[in-house]
């Protein structure tokens, strides 16, 4: 074991993201959506049929949350959903502070936390080793937060994502089940044109 390497008893979360994410989101057409690489982009491409209200990322790790902020400020009359994983959120967790001081009422953030860097071979992330991202969101100043660990909490989370009092943050703790295998548009400029055309009527 490396020096000061901490191994905790592994947290056990039972929910399969393939079921929990659709149950938490509900009707995806309620939102403009930015999803982080890579698992949550697969979750959302599967849920929406890779729809035009979704901009999925496959790089620029750590960008999804700030991108959602820019979109939310630009479109105050639409609800914006950022959905990203624990690894990506940890890369720029300070963005939660940037968001909380503005507190846009039309922005909701979901972190699908499986405790692993799934895309790179399921190495443990910090959230498997004692880091709690809802606590970090609270510390950043986000007032409306929750952690969802079981099916009976999903309905409350679904409601929170549609609250209009301020930015909300939902931590969805799931098992290591893989996200759905689904093809999605991987060309970032084409995805930009598709999203803008659907929203604005022009590219």
């Amino acid at each position, binding site marked *: 074991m490396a020096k000061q390497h901490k191994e905790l008893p592994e947290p056990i979360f039972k929910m399969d993201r393939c079921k929990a994410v659709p149950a938490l989101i509900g009707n995806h057409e309620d939102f403009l959506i930015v999803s982080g690489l890579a698992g949550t982009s697969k979750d959302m491409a599967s849920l929406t049929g890779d729809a035009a209200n979704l901009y999925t990322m496959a*790089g620029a*790790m750590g960008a999804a949350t*700030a991108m959602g902020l*820019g*979109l939310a*400020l*630009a479109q105050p009359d639409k609800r914006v959903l950022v959905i990203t994983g624990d690894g990506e959120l940890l890369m720029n967790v300070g963005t939660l502070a940037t968001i909380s001081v503005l507190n846009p009422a039309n922005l909701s953030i979901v972190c699908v936390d499986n405790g692993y860097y799934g895309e790179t071979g399921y190495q443990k992330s910090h959230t498997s080793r004692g880091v709690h991202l809802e606590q970090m969101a609270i510390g950043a100043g986000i007032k409306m937060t929750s952690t969802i660990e079981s099916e009976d909490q999903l309905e409350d989370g679904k409601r929170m994502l549609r609250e209009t009092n301020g930015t909300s943050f939902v931590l969805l703790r799931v098992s290591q089940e893989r996200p759905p295998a689904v093809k999605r548009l991987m060309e*970032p*400029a084409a995805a930009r044109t598709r999203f803008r055309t659907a*929203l604005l009527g022009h590219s």
Partner: protein
Amino acid sequence: MSNTDDDEPARGWQHDVYDVLRAHDVSQFSYVPDAGHALLIDLSIADPDVHSIALTTEEEGVALAAGANLGDARAVLMMQSSGVGNCINFLSLMKGGKFPLLTIISMRGEFGEGNPWQMPMGQAVRPVLEAMGVICMDVTTPDEAVPTVEAAATMAYKAGNSVAVILTQKLLGAKVF
């Protein structure tokens, strides 16, 4: 106008740059606090028609600009030269996605710099930005500020480029220690 009204505070080039940005419908002003941008930042904070967004790190401002474009708004990122280094990977998003980016960079680590910590990143600003496809334009005198920002805004928002306006230390003066 003549100099008849002595009570009016002098309008610096920063005020004119702010007006150019507003004339281009920029509504999201993002920044990490910086002495070189202090006046532009304060103008954005005082403007009820814009969002003034304090970032924790500069790359957030790159992603913010991409999100703004998805929603048909325009953003500008104001940062110091040291912040350029924090942005590099996120510039993949702008280049790959053909998102417009306008950034205004206040320089350290060049003309007359006395702090050795500022030198490496200051000297690397232009090569690393150009390596990521960002067009760089220098401002060395107050007279150049408005036409350069005007040109950069057009190249960013109309032609869809990533463009950096570099406010040099010849313009801003080197920090005195």
